[in-house]
């Protein structure tokens, strides 16, 4: 799990760097637009593409930290052990969602690669964003699968 958590952190930091990069580019572009009037056309497309990749890269860490919200109202009276068993089942179902997303997004990426799909103004190839989404989705699926079989102990320790 340590290795998976490490990769999840790498993904999150990479995504954070991407977002910070967006802020720098946006600020630079704004300064240019409001001073010389000579701004980068289609910078908003770059923002969209980068944030798309960043959000996918955020997913593994969210699962490591059990950040996806559950409703605990109906099971509040069950024992801790029973709740943990349910949480493991929840992790298994979440894992299947992410492995399914990995598969479909990979196929979607191949489709846009073959059709040379690009953003309208900058001509940024969309397959790059698809490709950057697939590994973090697969990693999230693996993390959830690991939690299904070995529980959340390490995660709780990590959060504390």
């Amino acid at each position, binding site marked *: 799990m340590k290795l998976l958590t490490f990769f999840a952190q790498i993904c999150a930091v990479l995504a954070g760097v991407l977002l910070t990069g967006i802020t720098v580019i*946006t600020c630079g572009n704004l300064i240019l637009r409001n001073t010389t009037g000579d701004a980068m056309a289609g910078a908003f497309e770059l923002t969209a593409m980068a944030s798309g990749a960043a959000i996918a890269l955020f997913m593994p860490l969210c699962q490591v930290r059990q950040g*996806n919200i559950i409703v605990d109202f109906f099971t509040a009276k069950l024992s801790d052990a029973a709740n943990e068993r349910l949480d493991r089942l929840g992790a298994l179902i979440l894992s299947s969602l992410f492995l399914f997303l990995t598969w479909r997004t990979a196929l979607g990426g191949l489709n846009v690669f073959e059709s040379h799909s690009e953003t309208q103004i900058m001509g940024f190839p969309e397959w790059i964003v698809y490709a950057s989404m697939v590994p973090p989705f697969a990693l999230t699926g693996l993390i959830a699968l690991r939690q299904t079989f070995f529980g959340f102990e390490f995660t709780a320790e990590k959060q504390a």
Partner: protein
Amino acid sequence: MTSIQLTLLIFGSMLFFMAIRVPIAVSMFFAGAIGYVLQTGWAPFASFMNSQAFARFAGYDLSVIPLFILMGNFATHGGISKSLFQFAATVMGRFKGGLAMASLMACAAFGAISGSSVATAATITGVALPEMRRHGYSGRLATGTLAAGGTLGIQLPPSVVLVIYAILTEQNITKLFAAAVVPGIIALVGYMTAVAIYVRVVPGQAPEVADKPESMTLAKIMGVLPILIIFTLVFGGIYGGLFTPTEGAAVGAATTLITAMLKREMSFNKFKESFLGTAASAAMIFLIFVGADLMNAALAMTQVPNQLAAEVGSWGLSPLAIVAAILVFYVILGAVMDEMSMLLLTIPIFFPMVMALDFGMPKEMTAIWFGIMVLMTVGFGLVAPPVGLNVYVVNSIAKDVPMSESYQGVMPFLISDVLRTLLFLFFPIIPLWLVGFVG
């Protein structure tokens, strides 16, 4: 299978998954997938999913959300909260319950650069709770104040909840933010009034006023100046037409980071923690988007939401009564469900219903006003028992205060919330007044 049976199956499976602790986003996803596949077959569903993550994550409008979250995280780890609280504590020091009021002011100011309620509650609690306890404030009042104060993070712009509402209903984010300003200020005044009354009516909750209140220093004023500059820059730029809300969020994140670095508060570890905190919040919200998208697509195919809107419209009930009923429903649903998921799930159903009614104002104004009303109930759900997320967050930091005490502590603020909601329900002009000035 009839459309009604399908709708019941979709909702039934979602509730079943949720009840067994499957994450809400995943519950929505699988319930939506069942509904989608039953109506269209596997191939269209699989094809829809090929581009679903890309379509949702790589949209320009939605990129405002991670940027505002990043800005809030830079503010959280950048030591900004401490300066805010010190300034507010000096201003309010001469009043009984002054530190509680100062905490609320700090929450409001922090909320003006953070769009998250939980982040606001947790951040201000970190600096205000020890001070309040040290000065003899009861655990009940201290935790209740901070849990309620946290909701100012979403009541005042920027607000992640409002951004999501704007995207779901295709409304103008700038106008929605403008509409939230006056209600947010009224919320702050209402909460401060609640504290003032509470400390006088219930003895032993707050100490008497110190003989010599702390004096205001230049350092304390300088401490809050950056927040004022960031807020003015971000919202001045957005409303002055210099940049879009997404660009505003980027400017906000950059200036907050620069402020934190100038304060020498942003170590490498805090920088990393800002990213990790952003990761957890943003991923959680966007996964709910993926689940809710599928659920709403499946529901829309059944045509039931449209039929429901037409059916309710034909009852001839007073439009206000329908909105009031929706708000009550939100309060009940919010007691067991996370507010973000609740919005993503129900807005596509309720919004067309509300828009089909005649409130005697333009449709755009109705949409903005309904957004503010929904925001009120979200804030309510964050502190109301049995599951008030903010109360959990604050109580987990205040380890010596029992949860029941914290829930008692939020009661005066909940009364203020109810009064404020009724005020805006009957007088939509209050939130809509400022919108008139936005071009």
